């Protein structure tokens, strides 16, 4: 089936440093999402993105977070600066439309902030 690829799969970073998580969505999809999952807890919505813009974001999407997809390349989540509580698995997802289509998820990027 359609694949969403995430790079890196794991990253350990010092608190205060910047990190960029990369997502290669399904090729004909138009809507992109980031979710955060702290170990053992449920998935939490961070942000969705369409046509070069953030459409919606949750309270978890702090000012230190930003997303972009320059010229159809990777859809990225940047955290600058990182904090200890940013340690989690970040899942990227994409869908062809926003209204009632299946989301396809990547395998997640495990971020550990030390």
């Amino acid at each position, binding site marked *: *089936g359609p694949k969403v690829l995430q790079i890196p799969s794991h990253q350990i970073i010092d608190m205060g440093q910047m990190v960029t998580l990369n997502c290669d969505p399904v090729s004909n999809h138009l809507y992109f999402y980031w979710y955060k999952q702290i170990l053992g807890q*449920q*998935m*939490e*919505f961070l942000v969705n993105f369409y046509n070069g813009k953030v459409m*919606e974001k949750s309270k978890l999407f702090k000012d230190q977070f930003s997303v972009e997809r320059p010229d159809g390349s990777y859809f990225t989540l940047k955290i600058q600066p990182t904090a200890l509580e940013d340690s989690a*698995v970040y*899942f990227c997802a994409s869908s062809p439309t*926003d*209204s*009632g*289509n*299946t*989301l*396809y*998820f990547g*395998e*997640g990027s*495990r971020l550990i902030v030390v």
Partner: protein
Amino acid sequence: GDQVEQSPSALSLHEGTGSALRCNFTTTMRAVQWFQQNSRGSLINLFYLASGTKENGRLKSTFNSKESYSTLHIRDAQLEDSGTYFCAAADSNYQLIWGSGTKLIIKP
């Protein structure tokens, strides 16, 4: 309160048996998606339903938007079915609201 209530939170089954997971919704949902999160943490799409019932192998899922619930039935459970199962429902704005997950352990 939570818009998506998933139960049970944990379930243990012997190989070859079956059971059902359930998500109740406190508001009208447009669609539901079920995922298995395996031991590596990967999310596997199981079902997407806007209504009715779908079946795939040993899994069957139903979504009843009028009565605000969805179920996931597993029959003839196998060891590889172990993992955490999540339902995620699309609200009126098509925003996904996640259940808290069911941790399923399959015993030999």
